[in-house]
């Protein structure tokens, strides 16, 4: 008979790795099962023609200077016993929200954004300050809130619709599984993580985060299996008891934590399950390696949230890609530049179905169009840009689906979240994206919280 695990973790993304470390620290017999050959999931890396490329890292949110004790990032460091200096965080320089007639700059000091709001929208200063107070006093990490429209709540404080759209742009594109609006608690999390705490980059990018987690896993002797996709979750009397891997192997367990997503996880259960919505929001991203650093053509910001309209359309486009808005990331433009070459990444909102329907030839043509549009946008923002691109790559919603298994290539998962992690089945829990804490920091915190709540405490 096969040996039985205390807990199986599906997925070696940020949440699965963090959950695994927590359980391994306290002697649980765990195994992390990952379909792919490397860890990271949505936040991974690859190498092409000697260029090291990151997938899901523009910037780490929730910056905390050394010595800070509260907030999500210090909490993660403590819970995983990672010393602060391991990530060698370099803070952002500044980021911009660019609309047709207005620009707002923000930094890791909220006072800068307050004075930008004051200069551009003087009548809204008071409302903005009150909104910040409201956000600071809101308990966003409660695991039980129901959906409350953030646009409605913020509308009570901010009257100017353009300012409102501008403030919403980064929180939506960096963390909403809902179209054009988001749950107020999620907005609070994003507002704090982007504007109040701020952005930074670990020295060496995604690899630094992943290798520190992998090192912990190795040290603790936690079992991690790559090329081990889970085909089926085995249930008995409405309780999860094991999994069947794609190669037919069966593993028995007391509990399962799945980071594969809510609808994706339910699809692995053969019994009848509730149905959940597939997320509609996916992206394309152009990654450009440049001959020169972005500073040489005048780009000195870290991130640019670009929108070519008064309204920010955060929704599944009717076309392959929405070129009216984009996030432009310059990874060189953190306080310390740790890269060997100049890099720009341009992210656009995209329609999974449209990409999925293309035949091979049209797919390549459309990818090239995305790239050409990215060049156009950089040129528009920085007329001094001279097109010297030495390497480029474009990924699409199909790429996201292929590498992470998220249905619809949905980067932020299903619009239906399971904040307490429970499912219709006993001993089967959701962590990561569809538990509801998003982004790199959020998903690690999710893995930690769910491991604590359902496995470490649940066992007492």
């Amino acid at each position, binding site marked *: 008979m096969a040996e039985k695990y205390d807990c199986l973790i599906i997925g070696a993304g940020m949440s699965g790795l963090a959950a695994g470390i927590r359980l391994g620290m306290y002697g649980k017999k765990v195994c992390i099962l990952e379909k792919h050959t490397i860890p990271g999931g949505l936040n991974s890396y690859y190498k092409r023609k000697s260029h090291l490329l990151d997938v899901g890292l523009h910037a780490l949110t929730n910056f905390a200077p050394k010595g800070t004790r509260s907030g999500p990032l210090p909490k993660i460091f403590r819970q995983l*016993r990672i010393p602060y200096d391991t990530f060698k965080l370099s803070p952002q320089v500044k980021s911009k929200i660019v609309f047709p007639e207005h620009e707002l700059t923000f930094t890791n000091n909220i006072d800068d954004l307050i004075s930008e709001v004051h200069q551009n929208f003087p009548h809204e200063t008071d409302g903005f300050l009150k909104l910040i107070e409201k956000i600071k006093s809101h308990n966003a990490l409660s695991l039980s809130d129901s959906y409350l429209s953030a646009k409605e709540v913020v509308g009570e404080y901010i009257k100017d619709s353009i300012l409102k759209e501008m403030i919403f742009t980064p929180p939506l594109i960096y963390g909403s599984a809902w179209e054009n609006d988001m749950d107020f608690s999620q907005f609070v999390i994003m507002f704090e993580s982007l504007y109040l705490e701020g952005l930074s980059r670990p020295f060496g990018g995604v690899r630094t985060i992943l290798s520190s987690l992998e090192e912990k896993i190795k040290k603790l002797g936690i079992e991690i299996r790559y090329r081990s996709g889970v085909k089926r979750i085995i249930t008995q009397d409405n309780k999860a008891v094991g999994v069947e891997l794609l190669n037919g192997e069966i593993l028995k367990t007391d509990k399962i934590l799945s980071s594969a997503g809510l609808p994706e996880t339910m699809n692995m259960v053969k019994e009848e399950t509730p149905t959940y919505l597939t997320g509609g929001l996916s992206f394309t991203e152009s990654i450009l390696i440049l001959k020169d650093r972005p500073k040489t053509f005048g780009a000195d910001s870290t991130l640019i949230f670009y929108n070519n309209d008064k309204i920010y359309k955060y929704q599944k486009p009717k076309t392959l890609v929405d070129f009216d808005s984009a996030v432009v990331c310059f990874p060189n433009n953190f306080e310390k530049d740790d890269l060997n070459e100049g890099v720009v990444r341009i992210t656009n909102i995209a329609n999974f179905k449209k990409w999925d329907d293309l035949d091979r030839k049209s797919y390549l043509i459309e990818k090239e169009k995305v790239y050409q549009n990215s060049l156009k946008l950089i040129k528009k923002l920085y007329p001094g840009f001279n097109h010297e691109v030495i390497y480029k790559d474009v990924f699409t919603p199909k790429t996201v689906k292929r590498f992470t298994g998220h249905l619809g290539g949905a980067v932020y998962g299903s619009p239906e979240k399971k904040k307490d992690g429970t499912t219709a089945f006993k001993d089967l829990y959701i962590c990561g994206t569809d538990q509801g804490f998003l982004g790199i920091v959020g998903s690690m915190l999710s893995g930690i919280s769910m491991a604590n709540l359902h496995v470490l405490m649940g066992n007492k």
Partner: protein
Amino acid sequence: MNPQEVRTNVVDIIADIALDEDTSNLKGDVSLRDQLDLDSMDFLDIVMELKKRHKIEVPQEDFPKLATLDSCVEYLTPKFIH
């Protein structure tokens, strides 16, 4: 184990949880929450470490007894039997 040894053991645990903190001058009578911003997740870890290292069980209703270093020592000394 005498109270001083118990204190050392508890401080060792706290030092491993709050890796970046100087724990050599912790005050005995001020709450750990206030001195180090320890939260409920951290207290859970203190309890888990006590169990892992010293086989000591602390039931949930007794968590408040771990509020300060002094109260930890008072509560835990009888439990460290060897």
